[in-house]
């Protein structure tokens, strides 16, 4: 059995905690506390990490880590992404400037983004269709990056599993 470390990051409210909770086989570990930032419509926010686990069909195990979203916790980003097999960036398309949000994480993970398999998940894109997936793709081009960009509803386990499947496929193609 091989164990892989997978990191979920992205904007506050994009659903990192929800995504891990949706698929974890064990009770997820969460470090949510009361949110005092009036800029976000959330009662609680992650300040340390989220953790869950899932076993793949072949018996390998994924250890799922979620980061805090706010950039003031970027020291946790560095801690959590160390030795990660893959990175999933979740963007909330209902926020004022989702492309700037993506910028923040591409810069925040600039040391890993070119060497670690990565997938971008766009949430709430049905109710907020702009920016489009093409717009996000153009943003990645500014960084000379070509990464899978998928619309997702992280409340749905199937959508989260799809993100992981795409990430694993990307990792396999990188190895070839």
């Amino acid at each position, binding site marked *: 059995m091989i164990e892989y470390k997978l990191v979920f990051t992205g904007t506050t409210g994009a659903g990192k905690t929800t995504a891990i909770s949706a698929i974890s086989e064990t009770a997820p*570990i*969460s*470090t*949510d*506390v*009361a*949110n*005092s*930032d009036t800029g976000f419509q959330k009662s609680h*926010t992650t*300040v*340390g*990490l989220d953790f869950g686990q899932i076993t793949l069909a072949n018996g390998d195990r994924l250890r799922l880590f979620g980061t*805090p979203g*706010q950039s*003031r*916790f970027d*020291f*946790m980003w560095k801690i959590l992404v160390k030795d990660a097999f893959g990175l999933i960036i979740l963007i909330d398309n209902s926020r004022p400037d989702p492309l700037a949000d993506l910028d923040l994480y591409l810069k925040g993970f600039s040391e890993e983004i070119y060497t670690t398999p990565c997938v971008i998940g766009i949430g709430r894109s049905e109710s907020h269709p702009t920016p489009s997936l093409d717009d996000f793709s153009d943003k990645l081009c500014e960084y000379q990056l070509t990464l899978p960009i998928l619309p997702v509803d992280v409340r749905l386990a199937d959508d989260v599993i799809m993100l992981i499947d795409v990430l694993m496929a990307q990792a396999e193609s990188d190895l070839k």
Partner: protein
Amino acid sequence: MTIPDYVKNAAQQECDNFLAEQTGALAAVISSADGFDVASAVTRSLDPARIAAMASSIAAIGSVVSQETQLGISKSVTVNTEDGVVYIAYIELQGVTYILNIIANSSAILAQIIYNCSEIRKRLKVL
């Protein structure tokens, strides 16, 4: 979760006093549970905003560890380093949980820091 000015001023006074009176103290920062500094006194180039965010994460991880190990409610986390100590303790302001973060060099005595933080917690809790 707005703190009345008199409570904020008292918290600031406690940070100032701690830095002035505690041997080896380098920083005293009181932050919200989600990592915003509300009162601070620091020396050197320490950034209260950065300290507040880190204290929030460490305290939250400490709480999760205590839950997972069924050791009751987490009260504090101590980081012993080669050249000093970081002591992070939960406090209350107006019934809401906040975090007191102390950074001190090796000339400080941990037991004294813990005692002084306990006194600060008692004084701020009754405001």
